[in-house]
């Protein structure tokens, strides 16, 4: 732990929530992608959270170790008017669930706020420590 280390713990939570929000934004932005049926489509992205901790010690926050990519097979849809359609008139579209993404977005936002609140608390405590002896 560094000086004022509790701020870094909450900071790691804030950046993890931010990464999650970014993947959700990417997922929603790509939900209307269209690809030919012989190509892979966009896979829903989800961050992988791993705690920063040694056994028996207080943890030091969270890390996003990777971004997992969901099924790139997507859904085959009939859209004969699309210039990308195959001989059967089919195209491939991503299997992004808007409902799930919206719920995740609210969750990620709440997490961000909770970590920001804890950051403020740690700052207040450290500031009071700086008044010692004055």
């Amino acid at each position: 732990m560094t000086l004022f280390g509790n701020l870094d713990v909450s900071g790691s939570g804030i950046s993890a929530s931010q990464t999650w929000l970014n993947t959700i934004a990417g997922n929603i932005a790509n939900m209307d992608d269209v690809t030919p049926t012989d190509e892979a489509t966009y896979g829903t992205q989800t961050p992988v959270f791993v705690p920063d901790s040694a056994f028996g010690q207080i943890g030091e926050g969270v890390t996003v170790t990777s971004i997992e990519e969901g099924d790139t097979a997507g859904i085959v849809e009939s859209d004969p008017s699309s210039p990308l359609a195959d001989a059967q008139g089919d195209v491939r579209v991503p299997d992004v669930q808007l409902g799930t993404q919206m719920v995740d977005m609210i969750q990620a936002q709440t997490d961000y706020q909770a970590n920001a609140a804890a950051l403020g608390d740690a700052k207040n405590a450290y500031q009071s420590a700086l008044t010692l002896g004055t």
Partner: protein
Amino acid sequence: MDGIVGVLQFAADGVSQQQQATANNLANSETPGYGAQDVDFETSLQQAIDSQNGGTASITVNPDTSAPASNGNNVDTSTQLVDAEEETLQYQTVVEMLNSQFRLISGAAGGSFS
């Protein structure tokens, strides 16, 4: 325990570690399989104060035993947020008590009491 200053110093350290644990629990509120941590120093400090010939207090990290959700995570965000607020106030109180103690020492030594 070495007098009031020693007790307060230990308490400040303990509360700061509790705050770290709370911040860490909140940071991991979405981590699958993560078990919340709980820091205890009060029990040990109380025992040290009660013992006749000055015992030693220690800070321990314990797993939170509340039931996990379907992803194996048992962090309750609202409880942790309340803990974070409480720990901040507790820390500020300890610091204020230390400052009062220092003012008392300073006054007794011929300086100012304020």
